[in-house]
């Protein structure tokens, strides 16, 4: 088998430790500044569409590169699971494992990126008023989790919502990979157990800027690790808007050398 090893094991180790130390230094520093336009609210002429997704339901959208999606946790009690595909080649899709691994963290808040399986950036988290209370580890609800939590497998769930959404985009169950869930406070304790953190605020939101033309689906169902005993999902808002064009100093593009290389991959792809 042909392999190209560029260095000795010790050199590879030193390189890895340098990358890791840089990531740890970034994690210890303050997150990037708020983007003023987003923080101040959306100007009316920036809004392209505005959708209310009822509790338990799903929604699909096409986002053009440069457009953004604001997801608003209207009640403060919702969780919104999401999947993203490259609209030009749906075999390229959100990759939860790469997204956490490439950014050295399971906490995906403002300034972080959602990566595809092809080393490219699907979307940038350009604003997040929840403080990174999102989960890319444990997925969405299923008939099984609804049976266990609420005693009713027939309640609407994220797994089936994603299958329905995929079907309406011309995709199938094979195209439903692991997801990310916004407004789901899942953390891992020292022993490896998952811990649920409440703390949702009414009106909190997250803004995703499309970095390629995308298919997106959202599922508005309670998270499987949310300990609330009642199944009572509230509506959420999904707004597609024209995002400010990223400048050379865009905090998402400049977040890390990994981010810079991800966008270099996007640029090479977009040049065709």
């Amino acid at each position, binding site marked *: 088998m042909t392999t190209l090893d560029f260095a000795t094991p010790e050199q590879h180790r030193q390189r890895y430790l340098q990358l890791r130390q840089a990531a740890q230094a970034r994690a210890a520093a303050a997150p990037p500044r708020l983007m003023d336009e987003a923080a101040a609210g959306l100007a009316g002429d920036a809004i392209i569409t505005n959708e209310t997704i009822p509790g338990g339901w799903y929604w699909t959208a096409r986002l053009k590169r440069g457009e953004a999606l604001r997801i608003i946790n209207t009640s403060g009690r919702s969780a919104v699971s999401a999947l993203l595909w490259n609209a030009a080649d749906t075999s390229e899709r959100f990759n939860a494992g790469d997204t956490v691994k490439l950014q050295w963290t399971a906490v995906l808040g403002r300034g972080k990126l959602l990566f595809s399986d092809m080393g490219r950036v699907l979307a940038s988290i350009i604003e997040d008023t929840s403080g990174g209370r999102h989960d890319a580890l444990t997925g969405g609800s299923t008939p099984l*989790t609804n049976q266990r939590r609420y005693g009713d497998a027939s309640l609407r769930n994220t797994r089936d919502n994603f299958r329905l959404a995929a079907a309406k985009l011309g995709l199938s169950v094979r195209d439903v990979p692991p997801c990310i869930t916004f407004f789901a406070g899942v953390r891992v304790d020292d022993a*490896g157990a998952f811990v649920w953190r409440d703390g949702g605020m009414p009106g909190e939101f997250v803004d995703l800027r499309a970095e390629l033309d995308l298919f997106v689906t959202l599922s508005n169902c309670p998270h499987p690790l949310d300990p609330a005993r009642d199944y009572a999902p509230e509506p959420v808002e999904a707004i597609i808007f024209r995002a400010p064009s990223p400048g050379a100093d865009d905090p998402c593009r400049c977040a890390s050398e990994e981010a810079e290389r991800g966008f270099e991959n996007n640029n090479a792809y977009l040049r065709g």
Partner: protein
Amino acid sequence: MDTNLNSANARLDETIAARAPWSAVLHAGETLRIFDLEGQQAVDTLIYNANDTNERYSCQDTIAAQGSAYVTTGTALLSNEGRTLMTVTADTVGRHDTSAGACSCEANTVRFGHHTRYMHACRENFIIAAARHGMTKRDIVGNINFFMNVPILPSGELAIDDGISAPGSYVDLRAEMDVIVLISNCPQVNNPCNGFNPTPIRVLIWPGQV
């Protein structure tokens, strides 16, 4: 160690070369053992229902159901249909990752630099192994990384640490239905998942109890 599981009784006993792909079909009740022969060797693994590959391993459902982040003895490896594909019946290491995915040529460029694009990677192995069973890149979902040590800290920090598997460590997986198992004996040398030196592994399959 289950004394019924000695190599003389195995119906398959193979060494998988360093960096190589592998796949097999197991019948319900059979047991697969994966030996980390030299220690610190990540073994990327995917599992499908052999009779309907639309049903496949779900890392997120698996760890959500058990309430903890790592795979070990007793872990039911769940499918996207909420059924148990395989059960981890023995584990001499203690914990294995299922959140950090497989390495790919493309992700390597982001993690380690564009000069690493033409280094062999697990996703290349998975694509080759999946093709033997009529599957494509679309079918490659989040996998299990046996013998790979990826602590997830309360802060969210997640990094691949030095492996904690000693030479001769193993895991046993019992098939709970007929399954296809795909393995990539991880070729990565840019992080510690293989001790910066990919090595061979050994797999054995035992028939179910009659």
